[in-house]
């Protein structure tokens, strides 16, 4: 595709449920980032992938959050036992080989997660 895509665009779930958010990066981009953005705040770093491996997952808030990128392309962010505080827009970004240090990040449109 031409850009980063994310699905679903909106997700409404109930407290305690499990959700999966998908990110499809730009073809050929090996670096992939997940961010969480709450209303009125800047994007908050969650996890960074270089290829298939999670190079840095220090931003994940707790063990309910997990992300995978099994084939080095599509990534899935998984949230277990969702809480109301998880409600936010989840953004995915991809960039060329060496990650954000020297390359611009291309962002997807985001998934708006609402936990009731």
């Amino acid at each position, binding site marked *: 595709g031409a850009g980063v895509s994310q699905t679903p665009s909106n997700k409404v779930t109930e407290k305690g449920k499990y959700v999966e958010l998908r990110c499809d990066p730009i073809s050929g981009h090996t*670096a992939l*980032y997940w*961010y969480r953005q709450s209303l009125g*705040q*800047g*994007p*908050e*770093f969650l996890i*960074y992938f*270089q290829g298939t491996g999670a*190079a*840095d997952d*220090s*931003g994940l808030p707790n063990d309910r959050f997990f992300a995978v990128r099994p084939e080095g392309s599509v990534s899935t962010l998984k949230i277990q036992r969702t809480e109301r505080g998880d409600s936010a827009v989840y*953004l995915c970004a991809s960039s060329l080989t060496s*990650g*954000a*240090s*020297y*390359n*611009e*990040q*291309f*962002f*997807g*449109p*985001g998934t708006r997660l609402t936990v009731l």
Partner: protein
Amino acid sequence: QQPVQSPQAVILREGEDAVINCSSSKALYSVHWYRQKHGEAPVFLMILLKGGEQKGHEKISASFNEKKQQSSLYLTASQLSYSGTYFCGTVLPGNQFYFGTGTSLTVIP
């Protein structure tokens, strides 16, 4: 670890200039600038990689003072399309990327 930006918000009339500052308590190896319009994803403006480097993008330019761990974004002759929230960002070892606190810019006719 989050860079601090100033001002938090600014309102300009079309054609006026503005400066947005970004300051970090940690060493900056590179500084990135993004603009985010309401309800949209951040869009890349520029990266500054070296201390003292300056770059330009249309009528938007930036400087990077590595010693002071600061960067400034300069918007000249502002246009209505410049409205949005501007974020600086920095990369820490390990490739964690931190966005700054953000500056809301509103350009009015």
